[in-house]
């Protein structure tokens, strides 16, 4: 049976682990404007990333946007997931496809849609200007709100589908029993549904948080040139600055922090679930 995991493991080893080892080696090199990089074994790139207030701020922005977007996706996704899980009959598959529908559009195309909606000459501003409700276009684009809206639209289907798969496994009778014993709907949710759905909350949040931490297209296109998250900062170092060692160090810092937070978050929720 163990042999069954061999093909997938080899593929991951070849396409993920090997390039990451190479990238880690690059992160220890020194940058040289004329030679691109010089072989070295130094933690200087990591130290620079941690000590530079600019990159600390980029990291904090990334964490804040990722946490906020995950919580928003959870808040918006849970009721939808519950409704989807409890749905019966042929409408259920149609509703599931509708939830999946946004995933059929690429991130960049979706962000372009937001640009057409939120831009100074976009649909919202044009309508408000046309109705005479505002004198000048509202700055709807190139701010944190636009980025969070763009990200949540991308990650919501992942949250809904993960949660709904878990909620489907919660016996309806437990809710009915609680209601029968006099629990109000909010109490049923808080004491019966939510504790049983926690594994789904943990899985969905981890999945969504990882996606949010690595956001690129939404951050660049909707955040504008002044808004910086980690993934665009990594790209900037590699592609615009040609500073591969520092870009690699930033990438590993992003990877490390995402890993620590997701493991810690899952462990905390896991403990709560066992209680």
């Amino acid at each position, binding site marked *: 049976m163990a042999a069954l995991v061999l093909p997938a493991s080899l593929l991951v080893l070849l396409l993920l682990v090997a390039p990451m080892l190479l990238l880690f080696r690059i992160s220890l090199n020194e940058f040289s*404007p004329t030679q691109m990089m010089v072989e070295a074994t130094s933690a200087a790139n990591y130290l620079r990333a941690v000590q530079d207030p*600019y990159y600390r701020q980029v990291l904090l922005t990334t964490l804040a946007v990722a946490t906020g977007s995950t919580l928003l996706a959870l808040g918006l996704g849970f009721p939808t997931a519950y409704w989807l899980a409890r749905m019966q009959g042929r409408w259920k598959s149609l509703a599931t496809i509708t939830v999946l529908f946004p995933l059929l559009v690429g991130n960049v195309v979706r962000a372009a849609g937001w640009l057409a909606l939120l831009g100074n000459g976009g649909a919202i501003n044009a309508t408000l200007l046309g109705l005479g409700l505002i004198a000048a276009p509202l700055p709807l684009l190139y701010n944190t709100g636009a980025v969070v809206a763009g990200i949540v639209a991308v990650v919501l289907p992942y949250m809904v589908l993960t949660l709904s798969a878990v909620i489907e496994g919660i016996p309806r009778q437990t809710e009915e029993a609680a209601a029968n014993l006099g629990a109000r709907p909010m109490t049923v949710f808080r004491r019966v549904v939510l504790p049983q759905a926690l594994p789904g909350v943990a899985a969905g949040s981890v999945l969504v948080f990882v996606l949010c931490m690595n956001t690129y297209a939404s951050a660049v296109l909707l955040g504008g*040139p002044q808004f910086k998250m980690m993934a665009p900062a990594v790209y*900037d170092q590699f592609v615009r*600055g040609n500073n591969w060692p520092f870009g690699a160090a930033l990438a590993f810092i992003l990877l490390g922090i995402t890993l620590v937070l997701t493991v810690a978050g899952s462990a905390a929720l896991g403990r709560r679930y066992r209680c």
Partner: protein
Amino acid sequence: MIISRRATLAGAAFAAAAGLPGIARAQAKQVVVGTWGGDYGELLRQNIDAPLMAPQGIEVLQDVANADPRKTKMLAERQARRGTFDVSCLSDTDMHMMAQQNTLETLDMGRLSRAGSIVPGLRKPYAVPHIYSALVLLYNPDKVPVPPTSFADMWDPKYRGRVGFSDILYSTNTFAAAMAGGGGFGDYKPAEAKLMELRSLDAKVYPSNEALAAALKGEEVWITPMWLARGYMWQKAGIPLRHVVPSEGAYAIVFEAAIPRNSRNKDNGYAYLDAMLKPEAQTAFADRMGYLPTVTDASLPPEIARQISLSEAEQARLRSPDYDYLLRAHTDILDFWNKQFKG
């Protein structure tokens, strides 16, 4: 063993599908050109690929991306025996950087029938010049009735909030600030104080040239440093704009083409570079995009020449960037732009 024609074709098709380009490529004469998309890529197709390369039996495959990802690809492949591109199109500053990184072939000018027609000031050992333009100050004549004369005019408080920059032109924007602050082609340091001053005057930064064009059209932005050729295109598109060559200095940009050292098809690469230098191809770029020809025998219609050409005095002041300085200072310029000016 008898190998049938059908089996051979099937084998070649399999080789192509399995990503064995050497075998698949041997079937036809091809040249892979790393280029920008949009108008530039389209004009290459219309004026070089179809009329000049196809009759030679050479199929042109465009590998389209912005300059930065293509540079990164060349750097990543520089140790590889076989690279992606047979011809690489980049700006002069980027091309110099690629030459310094030892990614480019030193050209054998004897293999280019058009080499003798290249404008002498634009000749390089590692690339041919394709088109060129100058950095100018674009302004909206309705909003700026008294034409500006220098980069320093952007700091006039009456233009508070009306100066705009394209983020991708961070290097030339920094140059403009350096010149306004008394710096030079080899000294961008004075730009730091000047840019921070402009930041306090609410200068705006747009993510792309297209976003800046939209802001110019909507009259959110009145003044911007930009390539003359872009200004010409935008004027043709109905955006109210005029240009002036700033008194501090005339910065030239040349878009060049070169053959990477690890090109798999250098003969076809040379044929492509030669075609890029043909007068008819050069005139087409001037007409549509407003770039100046880099060969001495390409003639421009007088109306276009009037709009995109520089006066003799301006030509005399036109200078290429200090490539070596930019190679060393590039990271600091980008860091300052990102962390201090935009931060």
